[in-house]
């Protein structure tokens, strides 16, 4: 069989970002197996929980290596990924993360690493360009959730705004995820007279933050990232979600593959898929496709196939560049209008 390791946070506070990935891989694998497997071989999944902790990730990586997995989908968090990817590299195992966005991972050290999500700097660039060029904002508050994803992104946002010289960062501040109330920071944003908030982080904090902003009649523009471009955000934030901008992969809503993936998920789990579900779905499809194209699970062949073969995924027709970044995902800016993310051309 073809063994795919799925490593990520499957318990603890970050489980909601790791479990959808696991579900996605399972769904894709089941589809492949139902269709007779890949290269006639069954796809088998080994799931491992790293709770987003580097040391556990390293141990798990050693475990997956010793169990001779052919490839790994994961890890969820950048930190865990960075602790594990070197071990996979030494064992020549392809690793595709649906959610690790730290730019440092694709700096060339790890030819075995790929990802189906835009790195922090790319997303940050897009957000800043949009804020400055399209919306012509002047005073921007940059808020983040103190996590490696959110804060990493926010750092880039701040840097790009300052480099542009056309706007000011009036506030750069982290909020504590899970805190029961964000009204103090909302008052501060108000006090600083920011005309926009760029938020780095995930949708639970974003919906809490935007909700409190609007309830306190703070109408500043809210711009956020891929972690927020998620239907759950709209449902949780409800009417307060209206008008929020978020970056995300292009045209997923119309993509039939994406629709099918979400439908398949709902059928099994009776709920909306969580964060990074489509990224993970795409990662798995890309992986299986590459193995199919390579005709074997040989490391070099698969890497080559990943780099050169395009594959249709819920994120679009993608391939990977030499750093491992997905090409063809095409990022766009979205806005919530009438309870839906609408792509802004």
């Amino acid at each position, binding site marked *: 069989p073809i063994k795919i390791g799925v490593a990520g946070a*499957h*318990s*603890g506070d970050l489980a909601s970002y790791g479990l959808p990935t696991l579900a996605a891989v399972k769904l894709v694998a089941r589809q492949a197996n139902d269709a007779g497997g890949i290269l006639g071989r069954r796809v088998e999944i080994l*799931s*491992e*929980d790293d709770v*987003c*902790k*580097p*040391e556990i990730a*390293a*141990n798990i990586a*050693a*475990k997956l*290596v*010793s*169990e001779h997995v052919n490839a790994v989908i994961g890890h969820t*968090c*950048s*930190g865990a990924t*960075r*602790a594990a990817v*070197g*071990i996979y590299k*030494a064992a020549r195992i392809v690793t595709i993360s649906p959610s690790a966005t*730290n730019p*440092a991972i694709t700096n060339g050290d790890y030819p075995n690493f790929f990802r189906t999500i835009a790195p922090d700097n790319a997303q940050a660039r897009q957000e800043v360009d949009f804020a400055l060029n399209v919306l012509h904002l002047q005073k921007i508050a940059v808020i983040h959730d*103190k*996590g*490696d994803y959110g*804060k*990493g992104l926010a*750092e880039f946002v701040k840097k790009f705004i300052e480099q542009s010289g056309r706007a000011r960062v009036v506030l750069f501040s*982290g909020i504590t995820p899970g805190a029961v109330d964000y009204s103090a920071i909302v008052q501060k944003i108000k006090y600083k007279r920011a005309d926009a908030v760029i938020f780095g982080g995930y949708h639970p904090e974003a919906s809490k933050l935007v909700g409190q902003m609007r309830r306190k009649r703070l109408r500043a523009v809210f711009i956020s990232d891929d972690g927020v471009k998620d*239907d*759950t955000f709209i*449902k949780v934030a409800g009417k307060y979600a209206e008008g929020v901008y978020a970056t995300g992969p292009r045209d997923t809503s119309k993509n039939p593959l994406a629709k099918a993936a979400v439908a398949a998920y709902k059928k099994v789990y*009776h*709920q*909306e898929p969580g964060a990074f579900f489509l990224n993970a779905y795409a990662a798995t499809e890309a992986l299986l496709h590459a193995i199919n194209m390579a005709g074997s699970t040989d490391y070099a062949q698969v890497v080559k196939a990943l780099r050169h073969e395009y594959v249709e995924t819920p994120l679009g027709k993608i391939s990977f560049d030499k750093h491992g970044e997905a090409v063809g995902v095409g990022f766009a800016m979205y806005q919530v209008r009438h309870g839906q993310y609408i792509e802004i051309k």
Partner: protein
Amino acid sequence: MRIINEIKKSFLVALWFMFLTFPIMVIKVNPLEKLIVWRWHNLAMVGIASFFISFLLRCAGRWRKSAARRPPALTMKGLSNNPRAYYSALAVIALFSLVFPFIFSAYETSIMTTALMYVILGLGLNIVVGLAGLLDLGYVAFYAVGAYSYALLNYHFGLGFWVSLPIGAMLAAAFGILLGFPVLRLRGDYLAIVTLGFGEIIRLILENWNDFSFGPSGIANIPRPSLFGINLSLAASTIYVYFIALLLVIFTIFVVNRLQDSRIGRAWIALREDEIACQAMGIDKTRIKLAAFAMGATWAGMVGVLFAAKTTFINPASFTFMESAIILSIVVLGGMGSIIGVVIAALLFVLLPEYLRAFADYRMLLFGAVMVLMMIVRPQGIIGKVRRTYVRGQVTGDKRQKNGIITNLL
């Protein structure tokens, strides 16, 4: 008749649990979609499972009651009284730990290394909690200090593992004293919350002070320990790190063992037992407390350095309160003050979740349940502590004093 009674009781328990778990186990709502899924099979499962578990526990309880009195606390006395058995057991363990990395996979070696690291952490915290009786819920802070010392010293000054090891230990000790000062007057649970806060403060600083610690994205590419300047392959260095950990464990056991039965160790225990009497015996409470914090922290700092070297990447996510809680659990489950107990508990606590991986999703659920269960079965810890006994050395005096009547004795 009795059995029927028991069945009736178990039945009631089952009913209670079915009621208890009803909304959460049976109804699954999807408020987004206004969708409701009823999972009645779960109710049946809960009912049946709780019936049988309750019934079995009842029988076990009855059996336990009828079977004499409580079994005597497990102590190492039996073993240590029998030197031959003791030394042969020791030899077997030594041999096993020596060949371990060569007969098991890199993964198992890696896990075992983690376990050994927790042994040291447990023994270190044992000094603070077990011996000195100071409840510390922020022990992980010192661990973080050690790990970041190595990572940063290496990043900025290129210092190697072996140089950083003592530095990390000393920095951690300094932090131990730093924590010790403000909490000198605090007792029991007030001490616990302040140490918890201290642990959180350290983690938050690491998370927020990017210029210093690189924030939540952490520090990568920390070199593994080198062997006389040679850089080892991944597999070889896994084994190498294992042996370093083993060495540190032996060193820790040696030191802690000696400390326990020393003048300072006795003062720690006296402090734990009765602070006022301890002072009245001429013990300087302040110094002895600070010494305990510093000594405890030293080990955490050392393991921190090793940790950074083993993982090659660190970020603040590794140093959460939960980590402190696990280390504390190791100490308590091991039997406070008992070295072997702590060793066994550390192995248990690290290996158990690993072996529970077989249960995939249920891993942490079972882990929590086992934690509760272990405490109920052995609240005083796996190994009861035995105080050292002294045989009469060349004590001056005579052998007349046998009977207990005071007046004859003087």
